[in-house]
């Protein structure tokens, strides 16, 4: 690991101005950054810990069931939150898929998202929750929808000095589910991740939301598949059509472990499976 200056600011403003410097990196849980620094893939001259800034962590539920998650909330807390388990099951399941308990006790949801890995396990759940990402900097605050946050692998719309402060989950689902296609049952990276969420009205799908991870340069919503489902009565044939439409929306990479065809095929299979499970949970 290269040598670096270390700061532990206690206010967002201080953190933001330090972060605006060149070659600075934010330390949230550290589970990505510390490993990257050991491998020399990350060589910041300055590391700014967000751990001493009060108010950045915690989960709150409003009366209208909308939930806010502080960016510094440990993913283990997201996984175990009863409200998230109830209204955003896919997100809780995604959180439970990250690394091990030891890692989830360190890793934060903000770090998982800001790192912008297309394979991040919380991202599909946030997509189907219609999460709003609140961002702060020395210049003020702004908010972007989660599906507009990512611009490419490891790339986001975040500008120098901007720090994610919280996620607001605007859209509770009556049923949702996340499946990660992986080789090992735990401690694995997602080959692909699929989250589906449905809201029902009188036996008809009022709305469906499908979030896909690791199938394109950025995480995406399968909007065509969603539109196809909307207003329909769920049948196996309908879910199969949705699976195919979701797969058609993807442009996955091929690697020696999992070919692009394999990934596409899995989007189809797992979209069907997650939709069915989401419906079963309603």
């Amino acid at each position, binding site marked *: *690991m*290269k*040598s670096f200056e270390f700061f532990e600011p206690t206010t967002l403003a201080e953190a933001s101005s330090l972060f605006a410097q060149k070659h600075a990196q934010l330390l949230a849980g550290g589970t990505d950054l510390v490993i990257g620094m050991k*491998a*020399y893939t990350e060589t910041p001259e300055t590391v700014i810990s967000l751990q001493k800034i009060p108010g950045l962590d915690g989960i709150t539920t409003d009366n209208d069931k909308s939930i806010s998650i502080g960016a510094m909330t440990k993913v283990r807390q997201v996984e175990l939150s009863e409200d998230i388990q109830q209204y955003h099951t896919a997100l809780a399941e995604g959180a439970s898929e990250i690394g091990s308990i030891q890692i989830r006790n360190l890793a934060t949801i903000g770090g998982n998202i800001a790192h912008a890995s297309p394979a991040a396990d919380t991202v599909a759940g946030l997509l189907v929750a219609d999460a709003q990402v609140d961002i702060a900097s020395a210049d003020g605050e702004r908010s972007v929808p989660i599906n507009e946050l990512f611009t490419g692998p490891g790339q986001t719309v975040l500008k120098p000095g901007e720090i994610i402060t919280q996620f607001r989950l605007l859209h509770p689902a009556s049923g949702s589910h996340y499946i990660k*296609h992986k*080789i*090992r*049952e*735990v*401690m*694995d*990276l997602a080959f692909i991740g699929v989250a589906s969420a449905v809201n029902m009205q009188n036996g008809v799908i009022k709305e469906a939301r499908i979030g896909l991870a690791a199938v394109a340069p950025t995480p995406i919503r399968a909007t065509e598949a969603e539109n196809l489902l909307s207003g329909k009565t769920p049948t196996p044939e309908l879910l199969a059509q949705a699976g195919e439409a979701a797969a058609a929306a993807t442009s996955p990479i091929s*690697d*020696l*472990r*999992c*070919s692009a*065809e*394999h990934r596409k*095929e*899995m989007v189809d*299979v*797992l979209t069907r*499976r997650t939709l069915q499970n989401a419906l079963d949970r309603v």
Partner: protein
Amino acid sequence: MSEKKEYKVIGTRPIRHDGVDKVTGRAIYGADFQITGLLHGRVLRSPHAHARIVSIDTSRAEAHPGVKGVVTAEDLPAAEDKMADLGEGAVSLKYLCDNILASDKALYKGHAIAAVAATSPHIAEEACELIDVEYEVLPPVLEVRQAMESDAPILHENLRTSSLGETGDKPSNIASHFQHKKGDIDKGFDEADVIIEREFVTGTVHQGYIEPHNATALYNPDGQLTVWCSTQGAFTVREQLAEILQYPISKIKVVPLEIGGGFGGKINVYVKPVAALLAKKTGKPVKVLMNRADVFEGTGPTPASYITIKMGATNDGKITAAQTSLVFEAGAYPGSPVGAGAMCVFAPYNIENVVIDGYDVVVNKPKTAPYRAPGATNAAFGTETVVDELAEKLNIDPLEIRLMNGAKEGDRRADGPVYPRIGFIETLEAAKEHPHYASPNGKKYHGRGIASGFWFNIGLESSVTINVNPDGTVNLVEGSTDIGGTRASIAMQAAEVLGIPAESVNPTVVDTNSIGYTAVTGGSRTTYATGYAAYEAAQDVVQQMKARAAKLWDVDEDNVQFADGEFSSINGKEEQISFRDLSARLGETGGPVIGRATMNPAGAGGAFATHVVDVEVDVDTGKVEILRYTATQDAGKAIHPSYVEGQIQGGVVQGIGWALNEEYIYNDEGEMTNASFLDYRMPTCLDLPMIDAVIVEVPNPGHPYGVRGVGEVPIVPPPAAIANAIYDAVGIRMTELPMSPDRLLKAMGKI
């Protein structure tokens, strides 16, 4: 050996002598070692899979504050054209040295190029970035079939194929070709009603021990070199250091610390000679630790292989002929375990007509190293799959065809040896009688597979001394590093002889200055051979103590007998004294008693195993779940049944990983793309059920208690057993390892 012997200690389950140390963090492993004035070393490794080293400039690194010394291959004694004798036949000293620090060519990504000693690990790491190496990058060759082609990139300009006694006349990547023959292969296939011929490909896999390699070396001004390290064999480290450094064995002391797993991977040295060179250069003790990427890229995995198997059988199930070509990658330097694979490939079966061809082929990957029954798992994946297919074609139960053809005492293996009493048939019968085999197996996409395996086990040298304490306990001194409970299994054999509890034997693993030569903890030999030495050393103690009792009682030594921990006189005087009480009287009868034994026993006795596995295949995702696993194995005699079960369970799970997940994945440049525990994907506990280990005991006539080695054979059957289960579940024969979701979906035509 048919009567059931009654033992007091053997076959019981006392706790390990090192038990408390290992659950309290007090056990000292290689990286835990501390010594005053310690420097920290770091190795710079080649980023290229195949490159000529044009120049190395270490000046910027040497000038870096905190750096105390830098070494390259130039610091090694000249090795050109010398041969080194490491007890397993001569090997080129140049190859041996070049694998420690490359001299002219980098032959794999991760090949050590130079090393730095500094005042902190971070500074050593920074200094490595400051070493300027100029490479002329060459095209790599990564696969044996490509490496064998006439226009393949050549790794070693001076390597000529040694084939059936002849030496080739031009450079080649085929280091050697050998053949075993038995009977008349054409006649055998003529007699067959069904012939199956298949090709198999297996991936490069790593032992995956959790503790990375490590070494701390110190050169004293008096010329004494001491190396503290974790290793499977302190004496082999001493031999390798003596050859690589061209330094007298009498001036080298190797101190084995606790070892965090080996499985064959901690026999060859890597950072130990580097630590020694750095220690010599700096005059200070130097500790060198590998990280996980270093371990994957810079130490020996076990080879990928390309195997063809052809077997024929008559309609009534008799296997009449078997032929194979085993092509194993050696890695960067010759010496794959293809020889061992050839010994094992058809070993479970008594087949009259056999031809086995073996090829050792160099490729741009790390020099391969042993891994638990090296070569046997690759070979059995082929044989056991073809036997399963023969059984299916002939409509015979897969256990029955093995029972019909299974090797027994007196049968001759194709490579020569005639079996003594072995227990293969008994493992098959145990599998057949197990409730698992009778349980229902009919659900859609569920399947059951059977496979067997063989490992020959080895003897080799072991030394033990036993010092008798006045309180009736003994201190047992041994040279076998304890990787999985052998302190206990060795001590128990001495305790049985002496008629004392296992807890009254205090075993200690010592350095190379403190015990007679002892070969590696490997080859499933330790409980067998070092245990045998402990048995003999304990017998020596008994003999000497009989003389003491005779002196006390003033009787002839021949008139003293020893049984159940009591010495007694026969013929006349009615005298009796316990081992404990006599121990207290050694001072008055002539002083301390030390028993000793050093031996090289020949009758290791082969180990056989038969496994039954149930799987469920997710036909949409290609994932295979292990639902139930039963492993039967002939242990000869299980000294400590819990630890035998543990060996079986551990071996099975390594085999499951090999079957389903594990492999080195390379890109076209020859870079391993998954050199981390996250990407290499060894099984976690959530990937597995409880493994049911069934011990069968057919005593080995070559050991006083009937012990056979148990450590290695359990890794042999799993890939074939799982492949056969997948076939049973979905009707697809998988012939490539690992059987990953991607490969399975492709084989099923889904993608």
